[in-house]
């Protein structure tokens, strides 16, 4: 999935800056957090065994001359948690027209009911989006995710579209901040024109 990734932190400005997780990889799994690394070792002082501290091993080892390579045969037990596979494949880039069509479709549908000023503001931002796309200022990831967003918009999957917009704002704010708020508003206005047909029941919880 092109929306789950980890980038290193900003080592220039932040001393020991932690890595940055994408919006998609930070989703809460729900419930209390599981603390996998939570065990401690008792110091053998008081538990009646009377044992002294384990005798220290060779403490300050001399650097080996002619360093031995690491063992090849031993099976290293994996870490506690499974690794998420990273996404390597690059899909073909979507065309701008494919992305543009549902966006303007939604905008035109709104023109009857939504104030002109707002529609104009949204359109201004969509134009800015277009300019940035066509002048190569947007990354592949942004283009792909906007394509998915526009498809969700076409299919009236408001929540999904909203979620993609949020993910883009969190992960690529520098590229999208100027125009994304227009897309956000577009989703909100289009949604209120088409109220949800079903009320979903939430079982139990």
């Amino acid at each position, binding site marked *: 999935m092109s929306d789950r990734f*980890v*980038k290193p*932190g*900003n080592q220039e*400005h*932040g*001393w*020991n*800056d*932690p*890595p*940055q997780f994408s919006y998609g990889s930070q989703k*809460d799994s*729900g*419930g*209390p*957090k599981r*603390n996998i*690394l939570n065990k401690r*070792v*008792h*110091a053998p*002082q*008081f*538990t*009646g065994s009377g044992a002294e*501290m384990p005798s220290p*091993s060779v*403490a300050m*080892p001399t*650097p080996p001359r002619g*360093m031995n*390579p*690491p*063992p*090849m045969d031993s099976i*290293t037990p*994996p*870490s506690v*948690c499974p690794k998420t596979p990273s996404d390597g494949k690059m899909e073909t880039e979507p065309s701008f027209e494919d992305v543009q069509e549902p966006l303007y479709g939604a905008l035109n549908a709104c023109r009857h009911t939504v104030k002109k000023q*707002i529609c104009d*503001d949204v359109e201004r931002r969509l134009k800015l989006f277009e300019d940035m796309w066509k002048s190569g200022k947007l990354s592949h990831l942004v283009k792909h995710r906007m394509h998915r967003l526009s498809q969700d918009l076409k299919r009236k999957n408001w929540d999904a579209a909203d979620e993609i*917009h*949020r993910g883009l*704002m*969190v992960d690529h*704010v*520098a590229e999208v*901040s*100027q125009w*994304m*708020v227009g897309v*956000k508003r577009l989703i*909100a206005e289009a949604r209120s024109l088409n109220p*949800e047909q079903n*009320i*979903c029941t*939430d079982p*139990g*919880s």
Partner: protein
Amino acid sequence: MATFQEFIQQNEDRDGVRFSWNVWPSSRLEATRMVVPVASLFTPLKERPDLPPIQYEPVLCSRATCRAVLNPLCQVDYRAKLWACNFCYQRNQRGPQMPLNFLYVVDTCMEDDDLQALKESLQMSLSLLPPTALVGLITFGRMVQVHELGCEGISKSYVFRGTKDLSAKQLQEMLGLTKPAAAQAGRGPQQPQVPPSNRFLQPVQKIDMNLTDLLGELQRDPWPVTQGKRPLRSLGVALSIAVGLLECTFSNTGARIMAFIGGPATQGPGMVVGDELKTPIRSWHDIEKDNAKFMKKATKHYEALANRAAANGHIIDIYACALDQTGLLEMKCCTNHTGGYMVMADSFNTSLFKQTFQRVFTKDVQGSFKMALAGTLEIKTSREIKISGAIGPCVSLNAKGPCVSENEIGTGGTSQWKICGLDPNTTLAFYFEVVNQHNAPIPQGGRGAIQYVTQYQHSSGQRRIRVTTIARNWADAQTQIQSIAASFDQEAAAILMARLAVYRAETEEGPDVLRWLDRQLIRLCQKFGDYHKDDPNSFRFSETFSLYPQFMFHLRRSPFLQVFNNSPDESTYYRHQFMRQDLTQSLIMVQPILYAYSFNGPPEPVLLDSSSILPDRILLMDTFFQIVIYHGETVSQWRKAGYQDMPEYENFRHLLQAPVDDAQELLHTRFPMPRYIDTEHGGSQARFLLSKVNPSQTHNNMYAWGQESGAPILTDDVSLQVFMDHLKKLAVSSAA
């Protein structure tokens, strides 16, 4: 012992409560002899996805001719906060919707890169806020600007001098605000009034486009800063205006003031340092020598603001991103009295700030914010117990009554507190006093009971009540001391005592606190250890108690009680986190976790001791504030030689990756984001590991902490073994 551990864990999972003693000594005299008081850690909003909210007032259908009550036959949309009446099919709103308020207070005196990163983070946050939340903006530098939102096409703002404080009344007049009509005193269920928005705080869905542009156009403070000077930053007045603005318009609904600070306040009330760079901001040394010119006045200013905010149920967060100190010491009441967040980073252009800030807006599985606002907590006790007080992010509501003890601990003299901001991790410590007279009979099978009642504004806008009631058995300490001893929760006790120690350290002199802590430890050993008098080698502690001295050893060396290795702001920050985290995280802060990775077996926990540092191992240390991955000497040489890139040595690549993956698990959910340190044998950053481990081997002592003057009973630079030996000697001594 195994059964008690399970009991303790089950209770924590269900109730969010951990007690120092789970069987209570039945008389006051005996209770004082236990050394560690009967006390509990309590997480009011502990996540219980299986616990549905119960409507405490019947929720009625809004159709005037229907008025049926919400019931299990109704279809409910939790996301859209709607329910459909099954009698008349009307769609209704769930509960009274009080909007959430967010007021951003933004410093503009910073480098352009920094400001740009901050602006982007704020724009991003508009996408994370719920559409109905109200949002406002105040910017400051030399002057303070209150921005009017929603004026079509034109940006308007009110500009205030940064040198002069304003009362709420003056502010009200200057901004042309009228206080909303007082809520009608009605009969029956009170429907809280929804306050209207005003020109300065507007719904996100209405002004998000305008505000995005407004943020995008923010410029660095235009007042020129000459060589050798600091920018003039009027933080004190800016915060005062923020508090006043919300006081006038949204008193008693949940609100969050988020202050983003790029440096210290250098002008006006609340200034913490002058504008000459050659005069540095106060250090602990300056404070000790009473040489901190601005500290008292500034602290008073922010404390007054904090109390006003708390009285109104408003939260103050501080996001301080600068390489030098910003005055967190003086401002700590703002966050600690209101339950607001204190975040300390080097710059806004770091992932530490950006991700920590994102996580403020984390949602739960139902899609609601985890943050809760405008909370109050009341405790009721059965008559044998009284409440001494609370230590945590709260203020007193001064509610007197039969449950309230005269012996105050922390925020005492009350049975009710206000916690303006809380989330599922917020944990308070409560201290109790057993008041039964000695030799008063205990009713057969009698149990003491405590009830915690938490009311708060859920992020959906709805007011909720959560009630936790617990009971524990009484025991006569004269005849049943074993059952009381077996009920000891050494982890909870360690943190409860630690909070007491830190609370004292903030109000008293440092060495006195260490002496007090040592005395309590010795008394506990004398009371509950097995030994022959004057024979230190005979001393034994059961497993129920054996970790406790270790915790105390590490606590004494920790940044919570040892301040001279840190700046005043750093100490304040560490203490702030310590005084609100749950038990597991607090323990990590006191005694960091250390895991070892090697070819010899699966990853395993190891002693926090220098003997655990071996050349063919990788160590992962979690101190809560830092995650350190340390490569032993041999591993480091292999890494430098590039064996991980060779296909035949794939298992070495896996070994290097294993601690990184486990660290990511920790980084995924921790709030605030910790620093992340990748280091190796001989690396300068290895000091983070070396300063935490017990220096059990003499040639490693060159990395141990420096000498302390004014030695308490047990000296500070000793190893755990020497500490334990000393402790045993003092515990068994008949002279003590």
